[in-house]
C-alpha cells in the first residue's frame, strides 16, 4: 500500500499541473456543482411562475415573480423595513464597538489583550440560537430586565420607551426596540474584531509623528486614527448589515410579527409553496449586498478583512 502511495505521489510530484488538478478538483466539484449550481438554480427558478389555479410551477421564462414582488406595496414595506433595521443595527454596533476595539488595540496590556480577544471571540462563535433565546428570558414581562428597572425605580422609563409610536409595543420582546437590541447584541463581536484589527495595524510611529508636529490627542484621533480605522468599520459593517438582512430567526422569536425579508422567503417557499416568488425575494438581499460590497470596496474595506 505504502509502496503504491509512494510511487503515485512521486509520479505526481513531477507533474505539477496534474497534481494541482487532483488537489483542487474535489473542492471545485463540490462548490461548483453543489453550491454555485444551487445558486444558479435559484436564479432560474425566480424566472419561473406558479399556475394560480393548480399551484404547479410552470417552467417557462417569465418576469411574473418579480412583477408580483414589486407590485405589492407590502413587499416594498418588508424590503424597506429590513434594510432600515440592517442599517440602524450597523450604525449603532459601530458606535458601541469602536471604544471597545480601541481599548483592546491601544490601551490593553499584553496580559489583558488575549483575555479581551477571547472575550469577544467566544460569544461570536458560541450558539446563535441560545443567545437569541437568552434575550427572550431577559425581556420577558416577569423577567430580569423588568426586575432590574423596578429596583432602580426606572420602570416608568420602560413604559415611556414602549409608548413611542412605530418602534414601541406592548412589551420589549414584542417591539422593534427589542428586536433591534438583540440584533446589536448578536452581531456586535463581528464589528469589534475588524475594527480592532485595523487599529492594531496603525504604526505607533505615526501617532508619535502627529504629536511631534503639534497635534493634540483629539486632533491625532480625528486626523490620523479615525481615517486609518475606517476601513475596519466598513469591514465590520459588511457582517452586521448582511447578517441582519438575511436573518429570520430573530424576527420570528422576538418582535411584533411584522415581516422581514428572511421570514417572507421562508413563508413563500414553505406554507405558500411559491418557490419562484421566494427565489425572487431572496435575490433582493443578494442585489443589496452586491451594491453594498461595491461601495465597501471603494472605501477600502477589503484591505481590512
Amino acid at each position, binding site marked *: 500500500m505504502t509502496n503504491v502511495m509512494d510511487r503515485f505521489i512521486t509520479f505526481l510530484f513531477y507533474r505539477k499541473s496534474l497534481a494541482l488538478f487532483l488537489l483542487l478538483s474535489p473542492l471545485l466539484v463540490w462548490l461548483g456543482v453543489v453550491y454555485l449550481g444551487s445558486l444558479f438554480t435559484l436564479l432560474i427558478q425566480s424566472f419561473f411562475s406558479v399556475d394560480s389555479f393548480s399551484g404547479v410551477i410552470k417552467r417557462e421564462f417569465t418576469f411574473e415573480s418579480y412583477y408580483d414582488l414589486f407590485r405589492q406595496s407590502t413587499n416594498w414595506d418588508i424590503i424597506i423595513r429590513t434594510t432600515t433595521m440592517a442599517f440602524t443595527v450597523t450604525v449603532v454596533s459601530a458606535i458601541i464597538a469602536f471604544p471597545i476595539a480601541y481599548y483592546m488595540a491601544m490601551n490593553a496590556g499584553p496580559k489583558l489583550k488575549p483575555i479581551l480577544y477571547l472575550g469577544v471571540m467566544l460569544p461570536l462563535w458560541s450558539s446563535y440560537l441560545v443567545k437569541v433565546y437568552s434575550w427572550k428570558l431577559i425581556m420577558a414581562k416577569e*423577567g430580569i430586565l423588568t426586575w432590574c428597572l423596578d429596583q432602580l425605580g426606572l420602570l416608568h422609563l420602560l413604559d415611556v420607551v414602549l409608548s413611542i409610536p412605530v418602534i414601541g409595543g406592548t412589551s420589549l420582546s414584542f417591539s422593534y426596540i427589542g428586536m433591534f437590541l438583540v440584533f446589536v447584541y448578536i452581531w456586535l463581536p463581528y464589528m469589534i474584531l475588524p475594527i480592532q484589527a485595523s487599529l492594531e495595524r496603525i504604526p505607533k510611529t505615526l501617532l508619535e509623528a502627529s504629536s511631534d508636529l503639534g497635534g493634540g490627542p483629539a486632533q491625532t484621533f480625528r486626523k490620523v486614527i479615525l481615517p486609518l480605522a475606517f476601513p475596519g468599520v466598513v469591514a465590520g459593517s459588511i457582517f452586521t448589515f448582511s447578517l441582519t438582512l438575511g436573518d*429570520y430567526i430573530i424576527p420570528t422569536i422576538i418582535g411584533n410579527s411584522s415581516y422581514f425579508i428572511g421570514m417572507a422567503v421562508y413563508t413563500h417557499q414553505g406554507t405558500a409553496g411559491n418557490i419562484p416568488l421566494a427565489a425572487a425575494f431572496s435575490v433582493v438581499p443578494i442585489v443589496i449586498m452586491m451594491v453594498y460590497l461595491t461601495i465597501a470596496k471603494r472605501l477600502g474595506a477589503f484591505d481590512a478583512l
Partner: protein
Amino acid sequence: MRSKWNLGSIGLKTATLFGFFFIHIPILIIIMYAFSTDEKTFQFPLPGFTTKWFGVAWERNDIWEAIILSSQVAFISTFIAILLGTLASLAVYRSQFFGKEIISFLVILPIALPGIVTGISLRSAMSLFGIPFSTWTIVIAHATFCIVTVYNNVLARLRRSSHSMVEASMDLGANPWQTFRFVILPNIATALLAGGMLSFALSFDEVIVTTFTAGQQSTVPIWMLTEFIRPRQRPVTNVVAVFVILVTTIPILVAYYLTKEDDGRKK
C-alpha cells in the same frame, strides 16, 4: 507611550466594561435559568434552585435523537470539510495558477451570503432535482459552509511554516509521500484540528440553512427553535441551551489554544 494615547481613559474603560457585560451576561443568565424551579414563566428573582431538569432532560428521547443527529451531521460535514479544505489549501499554497483568487472567494461565499440565500438555493435545487430530504441533505449543506474554517486555518499555517524544512527533507532523500507524511502533516496537524473543531461547532449550531435542507428530522438547533415557538417544558429547553453552550464553547477554546501556541512558536 501607551499612557499618552489613553484618550479619556476612564470613559474608555467604562465603555469597554459595559460592552463586555453586554456580550457576556445573557449567556450567564441562561445558565442560571437552567437551575430554576419555576416551570411556566421566566420569573426573576428565581423562586428556587434545583437540578432536577437535568434529570428530566436526560430521560427525554426526542432530545437524544436530536443530539445524535446533530453529532452525526457535524462529524460527517467536518470530515468532508477537512478533506476538501486541506487538499485545496495545499494546492493554493506555493502554486501560482489562473483563478487562485477565485478559490478563496468561492470558499468564503457560502458564509458571506446571508444564510437564507444559501438555504433557499440548496432547497430549491434539491426540490428541482427531486432529491428527498435526509441526513445527507443536511450534511451536504453543512459541509459547504464548513470548508472555509478548515481551508483558512490550514492555509494560514502553511504560509507561516518555512519551506526550507520541506527542502531539507527532500535533500535528505525522503520521497514526496514521506515528506508529506513526516514533515508537512505534523506541521499542519494542530491547524487541522483547530479548523475541524470550529467546523464542528459551526455545524452543531447552524439553524437557518438546516431548516431549509432538513425534512422531518430535527437537529438540536431545530429542536430548540420548535420549543421556542411552541414551548412544552420550558426548563428542559434551558437545560438543552446550557448543553449547546458547552458543546460549542469547548471546541472554540481548544481551537483558540491550538492556533495561539503556533503563533508563539513562530514569532
